[in-house]
């Protein structure tokens, strides 16, 4: 299945060069892949995965192990950041 994967701020360094320009990478994943599996595949530090959104909706840390991604969804992750 095709999933859109986005990493922002300091995490964008974990994307391959072709993804860094726009913070986005198209992923071809096996059905049933969880958010946690994607995090591990890209070796993202756990403590840096503060804000995890799937199609803009927050996924709590406790659900990352079980939340499977679906065809066409967008997974976006930020480290701890703030603004205002």
């Amino acid at each position: 299945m095709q999933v859109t994967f986005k990493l922002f701020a300091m995490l964008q360094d974990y994307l391959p060069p072709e993804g860094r320009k726009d913070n986005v990478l198209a992923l071809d994943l096996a059905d049933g892949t969880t958010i946690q599996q994607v995090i591990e595949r890209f070796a993202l530090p756990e403590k840096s995965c503060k804000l995890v959104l799937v199609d803009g909706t927050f996924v709590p840390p406790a659900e990352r192990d079980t939340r499977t991604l679906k065809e066409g969804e967008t997974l976006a992750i930020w480290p701890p950041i703030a603004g205002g």
Partner: protein
Amino acid sequence: MAWTSKVLRVDLTKGTCKSEPLNMEWAQQYLGQRGLATKYFISEVDPKVDPLSPENKLIMVTGPLTGTMASTGGRYSVVTKGALTGAIACSNSGGYFGAELKFAGWDMIIFEGKSPKPVYLSIENDKVELKDAAGLWGKTVWQTEEIIKKSHQDPQLRVSSIGRAGENGVMYAGIINDLHRAAGRSGVGTVMGSKNLKAVAVRGTLGVGNIKDPRAFMVATMAAKKVLADNAVTGQGLPAYGTQVLMNVINEMGALPTRNHRDVSFEDGRKISAEAMAEKRPTDGKSHLVTNAACFGCTIACGRISKIDETHFSVVNKPEYWGASGGLEYEAAWALGAANGVGDLEALQYANLLCNEDGMDPISFGATVGAAMELYDLGILTKEQIGMEAPFGSAKALCELAEMTVKGEGFGKELGLGSARLCEKYGRPDLSMSVKKQEFPAYDSRGIQGMGLTYATSNRGACHLRSYTVASEVLGIPFKTDPLVTEGKAGLVKAFQDATSVFDSAGVCVFTTFAWSLADLQPQLDAACEGDWTMEKLAEVGERIYNMERLFNNAAGFTAKDDDLPPRLKTEPAKTGPAKGLVNGIDLMRPEYYQLRGWDEQGVPSQETLSRLGL
């Protein structure tokens, strides 16, 4: 005690400057800065005063921690009745001016009356003088600072001034210090301009040596600085990417107001984000962002310093804008960009530079451009009226309209009215995205429900800095709440409003609250300030300040009807994203909020509430 215990009262009509003792009883009840100056203001000014009349007053005020070694202790505020809103106004600024004012030995300056001719106030410790500003009138903020420093032969002067926007009656003119730090909102610069007061130049060499318990204060401030340094947000995220890092977050979650709130996501959001600012440009191989920057005493350093693309159409023949300067911050980038559909980062920075150079709130300006572009899109405003084609997305129109507005030329004069007055004039008041005539900042309240209540009940008109529930609803600080529901938001907003009132009255930056709670601020205040500053006392002070501001607004004529959102946010559901199909539930949240506040159904504090808070 950390207060200097001295107030400078400047009668602009008579041209006199007098020192008077600070009311220490009030200092114990209202702490400083926002709270204490507002207490002075409402005690001296008729709530129904015309904001632009000589009878309005304007107070520049520091907090007890301003100028101390507390992290971010460089803040000062401007308190007045806002020109844009007609409500109580309190605009807070960083930079170095506030600390310098404290070093000169003053807690606050109260300006009253109106000078018969342009003047500026010169302060060198106790030596205070109103000086002729005929040669400064008509100059920009940047020119004014340079001229004053040269004429005083003192490059270490700190200057706070208005630009041409404040002189020309732009209703959302701000007061700029240190070239690009702003007391930006509610038209405090417009009030300053109406008094023929161009600038305040201050040099202070007295320091702040009156801390109650210096040893305890050093221990407390060091511990609090460690909290900021160890926190991933204040220690790493903000210094590296600044506030602008929110652009992609808020856009991804479908809460980025776009094209005057017609849409909730912006297709070009990434092009105007922090990540884009850090990339090398194809034109010159340089990044927009040069470095981060800190205000006085700040150990976070979230500020952005950027260099505009010299080949960009806006500045190609204007080398005066090619140097490194402040911006872009998130709110300005949103208002100048997404709010009117412009995805040209360099154009946003040019408009932002003009706002800094001539003292104009970029939030209200950008959002007013968005309203004008919608009026143009609907055919209500024409190319002939505006003087150019002004469709959503036009970077050229944005830049030209910014130039016209600061100069008060052509249609810029109408943009200077703000969106509420502009849309009213053209028969579509519903198209002003504002509360109490002040434009929304960068969060769509259909996608972040608590911000709807924040905007509606903000005492200074729509504002994110009165209760930043985004911290909880989006970022999980101090705990995560669901942005799409109204349940629990009344209590959340009240808690944020009361706590923020304390931080705004202490002399520190509200951005510390991404890491600090009141429990981190309390030991610093207790060690610095005379009196017993317990957590309970601080909580009560915060609630007292919010209610005091409310009383002023009620007396000024505001009612529960003014605690509301524009019809678009209540009747036009979000088109995309997680909030698709949702409107803001302000009518559900407001009654509970009033109840929690101890206000009646009309938003009037009950006698019991007033008695409990000593009001």
